[in-house]
């Protein structure tokens, strides 16, 4: 079920909400938590019932392994088994075909391809449970009830596309008696955040996606301006799509008095790539830092090894996003960017102009995002060639009378992407840039929130505008990861 669908907003959430608080009101506290688990599993299996046994098996085995790690001497073996189990499942569903395709390049008798449909949210719930096993190994977990553990993994606001939460962030909240009281403050803040997220997704991301999709499906000899329109649109689309989803997740959590961690904090206002990654998909960055970068030695090693650790962490981050060379290159580019930033810092170089640093940082991210979105490395290269003027510079037809096109080798006359779709979409790009660079982060907006008339009108505007545009339902981009 999508957050941006009528059935979710007008049926699922109200029913889950009212039954939950009814059970709490009747003092059925434990049942109320079980209700949330049932509702979350329903939410998950509404997409594809076939994957319900997979997530249930994953939960049961990880819970048992967590128990064994916490209570028995052979911790290391159980941890190894647990990580191997999770990675094998993830590898089978997500990476088998990619690996087989690449091995097949060198084999006479080809390995068969499985063409499996990726189970929804598998990368998220697998990483979340790996983190749980590692924390159990470190002795940072305590005895948890099975249903609370189920809720920790399946809680519907964060099940499919994160945030990737720590057990210590969630379990105490599920167990807290205080959190069982209905809080109108949390409900109104939650509604506000949900509306912001919905607006980001429905109005901004989906409309920007039209430009991006058009550009990325017509990459052949794409012109300079079109390539920039496509790449900028996608960068903003993925930002509003994913941060919108995360805002909705945080907002939904608040309805049940659960404070889910923030996943975004105005990343495009940062001045370097290190800062950007601290504010973009925060929980994945945190996971990679805690469970990949630090175990590799982190920064407490030689500079060269440290650079390698950074690079490896980002390549793994790229692979986590998807099975394909484009993701690996995207991760590698970010790793290299971070290494260059480190060296730059170590050499003591400082750029004082804040606007310039923000601009450079965003442009770097935008260029790497071309690989993130492109259907193939070849398409990505085509877009980049276009962005750097290697194809042609396309100018509007009306300039025909003023220019002799033949006198400029790289100047052509023709229509832009926007002429081919609808010029209004250009306004979304402009609006998106303004929101991303000048707007407050959702975190700040939630902190500033007051139950007054202005906020009332603002929320109603965001919510109603989004709801009446829900007919063109589109999946969240991060559902593919």
């Amino acid at each position, binding site marked *: 079920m999508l957050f941006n669908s009528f059935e979710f907003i007008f049926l699922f959430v109200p029913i889950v909400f009212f039954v939950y608080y009814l059970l709490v009101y009747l003092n059925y506290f434990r049942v109320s938590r079980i209700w949330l688990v049932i509702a979350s599993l329903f939410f998950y299996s509404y997409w594809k019932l076939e994957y319900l046994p997979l997530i249930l098996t994953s939960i049961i085995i990880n819970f048992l392994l967590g128990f064994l790690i916490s209570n028995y001497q052979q911790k290391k073996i159980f941890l190894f088994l647990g990580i191997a189990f999770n990675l094998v499942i993830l590898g089978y569903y997500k990476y088998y075909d990619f690996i087989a395709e690449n091995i097949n390049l060198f084999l006479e008798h080809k390995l068969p391809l499985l063409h499996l449909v990726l189970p929804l949210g598998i990368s998220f719930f697998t990483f979340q449970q790996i983190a749980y096993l590692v924390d159990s190994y470190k002795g940072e977990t305590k005895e948890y009830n099975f249903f609370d553990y189920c809720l920790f993994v399946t809680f519907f606001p964060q099940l499919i596309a994160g945030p990737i939460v720590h057990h210590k962030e969630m379990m105490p909240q599920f167990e807290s008696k205080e959190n069982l009281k209905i809080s109108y*403050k949390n409900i109104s803040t939650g*509604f506000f955040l949900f509306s912001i997220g919905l607006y980001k997704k429905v109005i901004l991301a989906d409309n920007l996606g039209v430009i991006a999709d058009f550009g990325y499906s017509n990459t052949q000899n794409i012109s300079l301006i079109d390539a920039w329109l496509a790449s900028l649109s996608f960068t903003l689309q993925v930002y509003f799509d994913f941060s919108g989803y995360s805002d909705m997740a945080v907002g939904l959590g608040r309805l049940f008095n659960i404070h889910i961690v923030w996943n975004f904090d105005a990343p495009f206002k940062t001045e370097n790539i290190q800062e950007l990654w601290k504010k973009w998909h925060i929980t994945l960055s945190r996971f990679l830092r805690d469970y990949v970068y630090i175990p590799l030695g982190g920064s407490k090693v030689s500079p060269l090894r440290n650079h390698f650790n950074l690079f490896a962490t980002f390549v793994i981050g790229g692979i986590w996003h998807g099975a394909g060379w484009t993701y690996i290159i995207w991760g590698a580019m970010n790793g290299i960017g971070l290494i260059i930033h480190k060296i730059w810092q170590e050499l003591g170089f400082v750029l004082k102009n804040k606007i310039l640093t923000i601009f450079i940082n965003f442009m770097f991210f935008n260029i790497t995002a071309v690989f993130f979105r492109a259907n193939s490395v070849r398409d990505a290269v085509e877009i980049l060639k276009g962005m750097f003027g290697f194809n042609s510079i396309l100018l509007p037809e009306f300039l025909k009378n003023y220019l002799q096109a033949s006198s400029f080798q790289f100047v052509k006359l023709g229509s832009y992407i926007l002429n081919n779709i609808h010029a209004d979409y250009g306004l979304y790009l402009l609006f998106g840039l303004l929101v991303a660079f000048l707007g407050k982060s959702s975190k700040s907006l939630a902190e500033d929130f007051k139950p007054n008339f202005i906020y009332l009108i603002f929320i*109603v505007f965001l919510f109603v505008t989004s709801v*009446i545009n829900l007919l063109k339902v589109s999946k969240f981009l991060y559902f593919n990861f």
Partner: protein
Amino acid sequence: MIDEKIYRNFVIRLLLLVILILMIIGFINYYFDPYGIYSDQFLNQNKPMINTHTRIHKTQKIYLNQYDCVFIGTSRVEGSMAFDKDDSFLKKYCATYYNAGLSAANVLEVYLMLKLALKYSKPKKIFYGIDLFQFNASKIDLNNSNLNYFQKPFYTRITHLFSYDVLKDAYKTIDLSKKEQNFYNDNGSWDIEQNYFFKFRGIGIDKIFLLTEKAFYENFYYNFKYNNNNIDVWYHFIDILKLIKEKKDVEFYLYINPYHVRIIEVEEMRLGYKNLEDWKKRLVLEIYKNLQMPFYDFSGYNFITTEEIIKDKNSLEYFYDPSHVKKIVGKYILEKILENKQRGDFGIKLDIHNIQEYLEDQRIKQKRWREKHTKEIQEIKEFLLNHP
């Protein structure tokens, strides 16, 4: 505690305001009903926006009403199976009927429409007019939200109440209802007096033919393939046959729609004539394998589909344009199917035993037609390849 009271009042006001605004939008969309899916009781009986929203309009008609006969297929069915309410010929077989043809419908949409009709309209007879361009997998988008119209008709009714697009079209309906007409009859067939072909009036039938052929060349037959992005059109077609097989109490009639042989020249250019023959062979085979029943071919070379194009003439006897035959031809089709009445060489019952002989005969007829129309063929090719 005071805080909580303020927040409680805020939440109540917020919910009330949201509900109020959505109710107002819902009321406007229901009342003006631009796609004709809610109520026939109100004002604005003329709804020109239906012309561009036939999929939602027709799926809702099928969802809400029962008919003795349902016609499914493409706009060729919409145009040809257009009978008056009291048409005596059709009355013999169908007390009530609905033309559920959809412009440029692909096999997946036909499958979904058939499923919907069998579930809700409970017809006794179903007629399916098949077209080659329905089998172009590159024109099928499994993620198209329009598929919800077929799969979730009740959901569609509810969600469209609260839609900005419907609200905009409600406004357009008020604005356009005095200037434009809905060109569909209540029974889903074309109301040709209002039909958009009349916009072409005066440009000459030869120009209408060339423009339509260009649309086939550039759109319907462009990038033609049976398999694309995990879509196998034959799989969807066989699904249609399986549905038919399951329903023992419903009579099904399958036939290939007639179209002017000039379009075969476009098919030749895009696919090759051999592929057209192979398509027909496979149709015969799949229908025979799954249903053991014959079907009819009204396309190819016969006295109707080879009607001569006379320049400077504004209309033809059998065709609106090369893709759409007039309703008199629709009647001939039903006469052949239901009463086995043969008009000249129009229409043949095909099965695995006579398909090869039929295709050979078609080749001879094609050769004859081409010999007589070399200049016309040249003109078509030049227009398709050179005209911007």
